[in-house]
């Protein structure tokens, strides 16, 4: 039987906004995805280490407060590469400014689930990309 898709949901830094993360997690669970929810207030190292320890297929990052995600998210990608885990699919949501999307896309992050994105769209994108990149099915 095919292994269930596993996703880590977390947010770096001191941003307290977690409604989006909670919502995405519950939608993913409803679609049969196993979500390891670590929530807010984590260092980039904690997020990456947890993702590797939990052997996840994907990481969902969330950020809203300010533009520091442009520091944190690239650091996540760097650290994944350093630890030879850059085949983990990284997704993001929150408040990602238009001009920053291409920069993040270039380093391998997709999704950019902003205000008002329907749950179905988010879940389909995550599952479809993980299946495509990690399950070759």
């Amino acid at each position: 039987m095919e292994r269930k898709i596993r996703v880590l949901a977390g947010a770096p830094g001191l941003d307290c906004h977690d409604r989006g993360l909670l919502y995405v997690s519950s939608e993913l669970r409803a679609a049969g995805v196993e979500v390891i929810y670590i929530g807010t207030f984590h260092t980039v190292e904690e997020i990456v280490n947890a993702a590797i320890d939990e052997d996840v297929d994907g990481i969902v990052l969330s950020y809203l407060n300010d533009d520091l995600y442009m520091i944190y998210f690239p650091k996540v990608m760097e650290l994944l590469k350093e630890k030879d885990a850059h085949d983990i699919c990284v997704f993001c949501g929150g408040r990602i400014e238009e001009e920053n999307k291409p920069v993040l896309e270039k380093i391998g992050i997709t999704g950019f689930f902003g205000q008002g994105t329907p749950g179905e769209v988010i879940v389909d994108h995550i599952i479809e990309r993980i299946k495509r990149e990690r399950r070759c099915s």
Partner: protein
Amino acid sequence: MKKERTKPERRFEPCPTTKTISGVPINKLYSPENTEEIDYQRDLGNPGEYPFTRGIWGDMYRGKLWTKRVFSGLGLPSDTNKRWKYLIQHGETGLYWQSDAPTGHGLDADHPLGEYNAGVTGISFSMLKDFYDYFDGISPEDISLSQNTPTMAGPVIYAGFITYAEDMGYELKKLSGSFINEYLFSALTMFNVGHFPEELSVKLSTDVIEHSIKQTPKLHPLAPNPYNLADYGANVAQEIAFTVGIIREYIDRMIARGYNIDEFAPRVNVFGCSCDIDFFEEIGKFRATRRLWAKLMKEKYGAKDAKSMRIYLSAHTEGDSLTVVQPVNNIIRITLQSLACVLGGLQSFDPCGYGEPHHLLTEAEALTCLNLHHILSHETGVAATADPLGGSYYVEWLTSKIEEDMWKLVDEIERMGGALKAIGWMREKLEKESAKRQEELETKDRYVVGVNEFIVPKEQEVKIDMDKYRPAGEQIKIAEERARQVRNFKMERDKKTTKNALENLRSEAEKGEKHNLIPAIKKALRADATLGEIIGVIRMANGYDYDPYKMIDYPF
């Protein structure tokens, strides 16, 4: 050949709204039969008279306008000082202090988890010396301060504020404004239940109330923030009722410390609410809150002083109602919300900047907020008479309905043994409501223009000059500079003096719930102890780790 016609698809469209945002069904018409149970003297009263439904001041805005505030706090202490002066020059009548994320967590600007964060989303406070920079050229005797730091950092900032005032020779009795200084609502929303020690936070906040009623009688030392509950998805009844439940924890503690209700209630009667986009529901909420508070004080606590029975309402317009797309639409939303604040009879409010979903207020946004205040107060006539919607069949009916819903929750929390015991239950309710809000957007049970209806293709969106506040690169430079300031400060101070003061604080903090820690915190601040160190030491004295994130150790 038939020519293509451009037709208005919605020409005969009716209003799609059948209920308020909180879910109260709305009739197509309200008339005298809906308000026959309402008795003017018993349920409304004139403004300034019990139960204060129509307002807490007799003359309302003809006697004094609401305090015009603008959300502020940014960058280095000198940046905030500059912005405060700018706002005062353009007609702000009350200061607003929003703490940045490290300060909000009770961390110093040089804490590792706070790397890059100092000064980014608010004011960075780490040591007593900072006050000299914030208030350079501004006297706290001249203007009230709305200080917005939840968590254990609030009491330390309060102590810093009065220490600074004392050292500068200002009269403590002239200091006015409010300190949120309340952690439980943040435990429900910004953090999570159990993230910071709740009992200890409540104890410290109670210390501030006790200290303040004697030393700073014009300050409101505890001003709970229903705003965050609404921001998390709470409906109007939950927003206020949960807050009432929370503040009763503090009221009960003060009574347990031997105080009579009238000795302190007039100092803990400020709520910092939200003002969301359902216009009449918000107005009904404000009126219902005034009536509920009055009854609560009089009937449940036996208050005799009218000052205990009236509640000061302030509001921040609801950030969650604003859209990332087409910020110009947010000006319209903020305007309507501000109008609701005025018609709701609030004592103070701060409109969001129209770029709020994107960044901290720019100067342009701050000035627009002030102009909004001024247009409301000086052009429109809406402030010329008290409670102009009083007597409206819909508004009076809605006020009563909302009050009824609020009491149900207030009573439920009481039955559960109080807010601390009910905290898990409240959090569950909030998460449910939050999920409901999202679902409503997807099923179009609720509309947000530009997001799920009336969507405009990107190339046709109205663009306004979104004067970019600060890109990430610049934000980091400020955070690094600020962290450097704090590190140097720690290196250059007389460590022996600081250590002694912190050890003194530690032993004071072991003396139990009723022992007031404000004097020892003041001593520590004067001895150059920092915010993180003071909180850390109080935590250790109560059996917690020095650092809530276990990344740094006690330095002495």
